[in-house]
């Protein structure tokens, strides 16, 4: 049966297939609401910390952690950026959630360090101030980081 198609036609068909696969790979990502919610939660934790009440800080941290854990396990895979499709697991870099989680942990460490620096400098709302830069990095850098990782996994594929 394959004798009926030429090499050029086979190449063209394979290119169509590769192009369509790239269109799906371009959909890898995290929903925009996740980045905005994470950044808002980050600043809210900073504000709660500045209130100085141990119960408020503990409660806010627990709520933030629980909500993030529930949401992250659904969206950090990068397979459900839009409601139009779910990308196959083997198309997405399986390290994506690990890399993103590591970045979030790193931002947490940076936030604490910035908080100590601001506090040592005598800032009145050290935690809030320290949380703003990571929150901006989340909103501005998160989508770009995921896009970079998706492109890298596509090249490997």
């Amino acid at each position, binding site marked *: 049966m*394959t004798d009926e198609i030429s090499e050029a*036609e*086979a190449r063209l*068909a394979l290119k*169509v297939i590769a192009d*369509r696969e790239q269109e799906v790979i371009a959909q890898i990502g995290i929903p925009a609401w996740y980045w905005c919610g994470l950044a808002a939660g980050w600043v809210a934790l900073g504000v709660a910390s500045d209130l100085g009440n141990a119960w408020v800080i503990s409660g806010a941290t627990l709520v933030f952690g629980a909500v993030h854990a529930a949401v992250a396990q659904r969206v950090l895979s990068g397979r459900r950026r839009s409601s*139009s499709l779910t990308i*196959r697991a083997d198309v997405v870099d399986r390290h994506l959630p690990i890399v993103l989680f590591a970045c979030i942990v790193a931002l947490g460490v940076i936030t604490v360090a910035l908080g100590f620096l601001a506090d040592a400098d005598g800032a009145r709302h050290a935690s809030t101030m320290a949380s703003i830069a990571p929150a901006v990095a989340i909103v501005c850098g998160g989508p770009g980081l995921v896009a970079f990782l998706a492109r890298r996994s596509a090249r490997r594929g």
Partner: protein
Amino acid sequence: MSSQPQFDELIHPATRLSIVALLASADWIDFAFVRDRLNLSDSALSKQFATLEGAGYISIERPLEDRRRRVRVRLTPVGRKAFDGHVAALRAVIDPAGT
């Protein structure tokens, strides 16, 4: 994972090849997404889907989401096997020694 080369005449026409190639990279895809990517009318796409569904290559689900009826399409195991075999057959045409 290498599949047995098996040229598939049902998949090979350009439109159906594009549809199946999109579906092959996803667990499921919304009808509208495929329609917009391929610049097809609803009726033209429905016709292609009916052909593929008739062959057992795709399954069509209609879940109710946000009070809207969605149409989700996914490749069946039979469709995936046919697509993988077709891709292997195309590669065999280009590189007969590689199979």
